[in-house]
């Protein structure tokens, strides 16, 4: 419940920033829809931040990211040119857990079952990914990361990726 209340507050804050013209461009300010915030979990499962999608039609035009207590982190746009949606991914690629789970299954071994995806990050909060847990017959769990159409196993530490 506390998270729900927080999510409502974050969503209102994002809406205000967008409509006020402080952040974003004319296209997202006039046509963008602020979707429900999604919790970004740290690798240890704690709430790290909030991902607030901004969609135009069925495309993901950009997103806000706020720290858990509401501090603004960033607004990122997929659009390569202001006012154009070219290059923006399908919203479902980022927001539909079923599609994300299905995508992760290309990496599933025969004895594994896929679990519920959760939004997290690959080492740094700039690298947002969906993590899909894959559980084997002995109860062992490994994660597969999904970001857009890219699916990969968590890389080792110690590199700039």
């Amino acid at each position: 419940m506390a998270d729900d209340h927080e999510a409502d507050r974050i969503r209102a804050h994002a809406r205000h920033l967008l409509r006020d013209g402080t952040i974003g461009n004319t296209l997202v300010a006039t046509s963008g829809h602020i979707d429900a915030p999604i919790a970004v979990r740290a690798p240890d499962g704690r709430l790290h931040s909030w991902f607030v999608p901004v969609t135009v039609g069925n495309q993901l035009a950009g997103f806000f990211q706020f720290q858990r207590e509401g501090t603004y982190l960033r607004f990122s746009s997929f659009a390569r040119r202001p006012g154009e949606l070219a290059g923006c991914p399908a919203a479902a690629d980022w927001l539909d857990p079923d599609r994300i789970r299905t995508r992760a299954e290309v990496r599933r071994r025969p004895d594994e079952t896929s679990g519920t995806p959760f939004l997290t990050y690959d080492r740094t909060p700039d690298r947002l990914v969906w993590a899909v847990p894959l559980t084997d017959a002995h109860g062992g769990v490994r994660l597969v990361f999904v970001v857009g159409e890219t699916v990969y196993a968590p890389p080792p530490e110690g590199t700039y990726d």
Partner: protein
Amino acid sequence: MPISVKQVQRLAGFELNALRATQVLGEEFEKVKVPRTGTPVYDVNGTLLFYRLPLRLGRAFSGYADLGVHEALAEPLLAVGMGGAWDERAILKEAAAAARKRRRLLKFNSIRFVAYSFPKLALQYLLDGREVLMLEWKTWTEVPPLASQRQQQEPSNFERWSLIDDMPAEIKRARLRSFKKRQAIWATPALSRLDPTVIMKKTFDLPKIVIKLKDTREVHYAPRAADHHPCYELRGQQTNVWCVAASVEMLMNFYRYQYDQPRLAQEMDLGTCAVPNGLPYGQEHKVVDTIEKLSSNTLNATAIVNPAWAVFQTEIAANRPLISFIPGHSRTVAGYTRTLIHLPGQLPFRGLLVYDPWPPTDCAHPEAGGVITKWENFATQTYRYAFTAVLKHV
């Protein structure tokens, strides 16, 4: 010379409107009227320090603004409070009752507000101009007299001291200069016809009035921003571990060098599209080496460890993009913004325009991937390295 009571409303209005224009003050301040004057608050030595102006908008909003009139305060606007009404009359009534409760036979003929330990407030009870009692506001505890042999160091928790008398001369001079500079901004002829007595976001949105409330720059085709468009392009990383290759590609593209990521990966030992790898920690020098080699040493690259804000600001002002390493990831920076006006005690907002190669694409679709972040809150990120590239001239 301290500002006069006639100037108070106008000066407060400009300060509050500027904060509204930069959205430091939120929508709740919209259309709030700035009163002509407020409650005078004095230093312990009797000097007028500031006015507390009550701010109201019907029942929707109540708060206050403290407007400094003494130059030693460095800036006119000291504080903005919200969520509680400032009712001078009610406080004075309460103060009179508190004094009589403490000393039934106390005689006084005036009460004034004193910043007995700035910004803590007290009520000073005077009889023919001489203090007979001082009580701390709200707790109504008696404030001890000024210590005769007071050390000019940090005051204790409950001690009377003078902001003006205790301030070292050189600090006072610097603050005076700062205060006058701020006054001069609002005294410019272009603002003379402006009415700042109501707080509105659009107060400064008038033709021929340009007030610099923020400083924003992006890299352009050429250094003259006035007649050249922003000129920078996003490249998505073509594998999930090629953020460095994509960052170097973006920076080199700015200088019209066309090297694709597989070629850059080859140069930095990052593998191939089919079997890629990231750049290991400790091999950051490869960024410098690659930029210099592939530009035939036309670009002079430098790695800066733990870069401060000034590094980004200076480079962008010189129309040069940078590569920015954060833990585990690399991106490029092609612009910045910073607010030039903010509430006292608050840090100004500083943001970077980041061309981030994440999320990845693949080698078959080099035109996809990445995001443009406008703005990344500089205060919330850890910057490990910045790589600058300077074009050598003959």
